[in-house]
């Protein structure tokens, strides 16, 4: 018998490869997970709880944001549209004109900056159990944006670079001047459910 010639039929090979391709298309996802990073406060033990009660934060240092069960905002006692939240938060944190009712500044030694004023402002966020998650994320997003913009402005001013492109030490220095503190109070349950 003569040996079969060297060429073999490669047509089914494509079918096998297609099958594999379809398997991978179905079984995998493209999604890169993105989101807003937050750190939850640890549950305080009794001793810390007592300490916390003693430590009162001055009213001018707190930026109060409330969201009700109808997704309406109340910022520092005034109803506000979400589109104005970012600007207001920025003005509160930075307090550029040293207003009396905006947060105090504390002069502190910060690397790269020397003696600088750092803000003592805290954002307090409280929502209702009936608030929609969409609204909650929008508010969190605006507050993060306010901090990010301030960080970026300062980075541009001092280092001439975007905040994202700085190294860790410089980022930490900027974080120290505008520390991002968003404190979340226990939600109310007015709207029911």
């Amino acid at each position: 018998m003569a040996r079969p010639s060297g060429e073999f039929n490669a047509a089914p090979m494509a079918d096998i490869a297609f099958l594999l391709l379809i398997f991978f298309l179905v079984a995998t996802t493209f999604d890169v997970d993105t989101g807003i990073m937050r750190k939850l406060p640890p549950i305080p033990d009794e001793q810390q709880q007592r300490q916390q009660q003693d430590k009162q934060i001055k009213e001018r240092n707190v930026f109060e944001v409330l969201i009700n069960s109808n997704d309406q905002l109340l910022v520092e006692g005034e109803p506000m549209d979400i589109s104005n939240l970012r600007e207001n938060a920025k003005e509160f944190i930075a307090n550029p004109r040293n207003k009396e009712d905006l947060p105090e500044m504390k002069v502190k030694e910060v690397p790269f900056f020397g003696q600088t004023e750092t803000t003592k402002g805290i954002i307090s966020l409280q929502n209702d159990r009936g608030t929609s998650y969409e609204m909650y994320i929008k508010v969190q997003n605006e507050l993060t944006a306010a901090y990010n913009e301030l960080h970026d402005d300062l980075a541009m001013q001092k280092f001439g670079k975007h905040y994202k492109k700085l190294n860790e030490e410089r980022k930490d220095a900027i974080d120290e001047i505008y520390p991002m503190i968003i404190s979340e109070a226990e939600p109310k349950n007015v709207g029911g459910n």
Partner: protein
Amino acid sequence: MAKFRKEGKKEIPQISTASLPDIIFMLIFFFMVSTTIRETQLMVENKVPGATEVKKLERKDLVSYIYIGKPKRQFQDLYGTEPRIQLNDSFAKVDDIRDYIATERKQLDESERPKMTTSLKVDEDTKMGVVTDVKLALRKASALKINYSAREVKQVY
């Protein structure tokens, strides 16, 4: 001198399909590299809200997921339409989060345990009530690094 031969009949040769598998294999490799295997089957509606200030989650192996949302159509007879929590491949209660976090934590290397992140994949139509309960449970389980999963969009309002 070159000779040019002219053939009387011209036949159209059959296209060789031998290179087709190579092309397909290339596609396969592309998909294998750029995608990740779907580890859980989603049993709840999960359209995460949009945000502009999102960050990428870098180390996927350090992330455990909690899905919250309305059960999908085929599960609604059994589980109703109220938002529910899904851990791994099953519906769960808030109390189960503690055990879930404990098992997830055990799977990690000791040095990397503090870096563990919990990604909350919450449907945008959910009310904050459930989310708050989950957050409290996470605090109790001392899984404090969380990530509110969100899509990146250009504008939110």
